């Protein structure tokens, strides 16, 4: 990996944030009285890159965010930063012969991951193709199909979400290292570090990344209070987000919401390093394909045909 996390060779953590904050406070204090709200704003403004913060600093940030979200959504919100499990690399399987295009996964994902309802953001796009016509280049896909009943005769469906590439072009392109691949293979985003340049969106061959064009809105009663810092916590206007294999669930041993909701069992999920896992079984025994393999992104998202 090309990214570096800077460490002070003396073993003393250089606290850039406090230094900058001190300077800024020094400057502003002379001009205006600093209110509590201003201090919160400054804390947010000078917050360091997630991977450069110490455990204590992360704790401080999580507490601040929990307080902020609890006030906003009028319910007790927890913000975790559960680290990747050792010896785990997540892989995902999707059985194309089973998918019926019902989009339950799309809306389960929206609910679990607190995607904005207005403007609407969906991390999963279900593409519909006409049987017998070309489909592997995705150009003939239809995303906005709307029949009374699915599956429709003569069509098949292919849901697409973040493919959690082993060689992710989005991570390479991000100018601020705001997105990176964790050791369990999940590509995550620090919503407090993203500058909203959208270069990652141009770089993603799977159209997986979503931008908050407006301020995201989630009704209080629908807000999922069990959140992860790098996953489903509330996003800001002007930052990029995407599927994280439900990092808040998968890192504590649960299935992602889309896997759990799928009525036909088309979605499989597990540890690629575990020879006994369901996903390994699918890869070893089924006909498997990955999207746009010619781009060498090595997705950890496997489409297969069970029947």
């Amino acid at each position, binding site marked *: 990996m090309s990214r570096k996390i800077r460490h002070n060779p003396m073993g003393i953590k250089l606290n*850039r944030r406090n230094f900058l904050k001190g300077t800024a406070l020094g400057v502003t204090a002379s001009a205006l009285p600093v209110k509590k709200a201003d201090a919160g704003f400054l804390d947010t403004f000078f917050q360091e890159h997630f991977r450069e913060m110490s455990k204590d600093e992360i704790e401080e940030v999580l507490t601040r965010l929990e307080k902020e979200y609890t006030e906003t959504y009028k319910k007790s919100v927890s913000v975790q930063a559960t680290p990747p499990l050792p010896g785990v690399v997540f892989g995902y399987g999707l059985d194309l012969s089973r998918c019926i295009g019902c989009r339950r996964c799309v809306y389960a994902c929206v609910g679990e991951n607190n995607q904005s309802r207005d403007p609407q953001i969906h991390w999963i796009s279900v593409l519909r193709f006409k049987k017998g016509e070309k489909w592997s280049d995705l150009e003939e896909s239809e995303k906005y199909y709307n029949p009374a009943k699915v599956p429709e005769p003569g069509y098949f469906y292919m849901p697409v979400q973040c493919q959690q590439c082993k060689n992710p072009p989005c991570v390479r392109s991000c100018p601020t290292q705001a997105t990176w691949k964790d050791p369990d293979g999940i590509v995550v985003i620090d919503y407090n570090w993203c500058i*909203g340049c959208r270069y990652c969106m141009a770089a993603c061959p799977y159209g997986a990344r979503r931008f908050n064009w407006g301020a995201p809105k989630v009704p209080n009663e629908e807000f999922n209070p069990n959140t992860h810092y790098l996953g489903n916590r509330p996003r800001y206007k*002007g930052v990029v987000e995407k599927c994280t294999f439900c990092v808040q669930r998968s890192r504590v041993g649960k299935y992602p919401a889309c896997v759990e909701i799928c009525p036909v069992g088309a979605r499989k999920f597990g540890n690629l390093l575990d020879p006994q896992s369901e996903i390994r079984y699918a890869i070893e025994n089924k006909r498997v394909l990955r999207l746009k393999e010619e781009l060498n992104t090595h997705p950890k998202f496997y489409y297969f045909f069970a029947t």
Partner: protein
Amino acid sequence: MLDFFRNVAKTVKPIFIGHKYYYMWVGFLCFFMFLGLVAYAQQLYQGLIVTAMRDQVSWGLYISNFTFLVGVAAAAVVLVVPAYLYNFKAIKEIAILGEMLAVTAVTLCILFIMVDMGQPTRVWHILPFIGAMNFPSSLLAWDVVVLNGYLIINVVILGYVLYQTALGKEYSWQVIGPLIILSIPWAVGIHTVTAFLYNGLAARPFWNASILAPRFLASAFCSGPALMLILFQIIRKVSRIEIKNDAIFKIAELIAYAMCINIFLLGAEVFKEFYSGTVHKAHVQYLYFGLHGNTSLVPWMWWATILNITALILFLTPRTRENFLTLNAGCVFILIGVYIEKGMGLIVPGFVPSALGEIYDYSPTTQEILITVGIWAFGALFYTLLLKFVIPIYTGELRFGNKGEPSGQEGYEERVKAQEVPAKEVYVD
């Protein structure tokens, strides 16, 4: 120290003094800047949702303008090379005007990037040391380095030459030479890096063609000099600066060569896409013929093609190249043609059809257009003020002096008479 402030005051003074038309022009630009600012305030408040950009087409008018302006900035080198290295005297005298244009264009590039950002207050995250710049992995980080470097190089050259001139001294080649030589590959660099920014994305077959960087350079050497030719004619009309026809025709000749290469490279690309006819053809097809009834770029692209070819003919023929009516028409054609081709015609089809095959017919909103016009108005104002500040120094009307010595407008006539400062030979070394 006191002298320093007096000198600063003296150089700033001409900015506030001018003809009635000057004030009108400044007022006119301020009006559009104000409209742009209002639109930007709205964008800051509501988010980029006020633009027509969406997840499918995630870059639009702002990045298009950015790309075009990087070309204009790079083209300054066209003047700098013959001016300083080959000692082509007619151009050398006006090289400084090209450098000013480069400084203005890079400033506008940075502004266009700023208005395109979702979180502009976090811009420091991209800086090395205090932020977490993803260098050398991200091409956008490279672009930040080369664009700011180019800005600094040109500001230093400009500042040094002007300061020495204002003191009535010759500039020293030892000081400025290495910087000027550095600025030449650097100008090529800013445009190459900007091309690589798009070129490196395997996800976008329309940009992922190795011909992109050469095409960028070729079109830059059309649009940049074309803009300069028009500016030169305005400048020599409204100021005492004399710009020889020689210089103008020489630059026009350079444009003709650049346009030949530009059209050839474009043709090579169009041939490859249509003859091989793979699925990647969809993007070029969208650009020139439309896709599934979505044709918003088609008329623009055909106009761009017609204008570019007409301009090529005008500039290739010596008679039309050396006639100011046809020359200026050609310049305007090139500016419009390249602006379309290298702006929206380059950015938007990269996203249409999208990575998942979706077609989103992007066309900018009023806010987007107002912000864009506002930034251009700022650029025009910036260049105008620079000129107001530079021209008196350049023509020798303004000289830094010590107390008691005749300086400024009052002393100008005497000094010219006394042959103390030959106004037109400031740049001879």
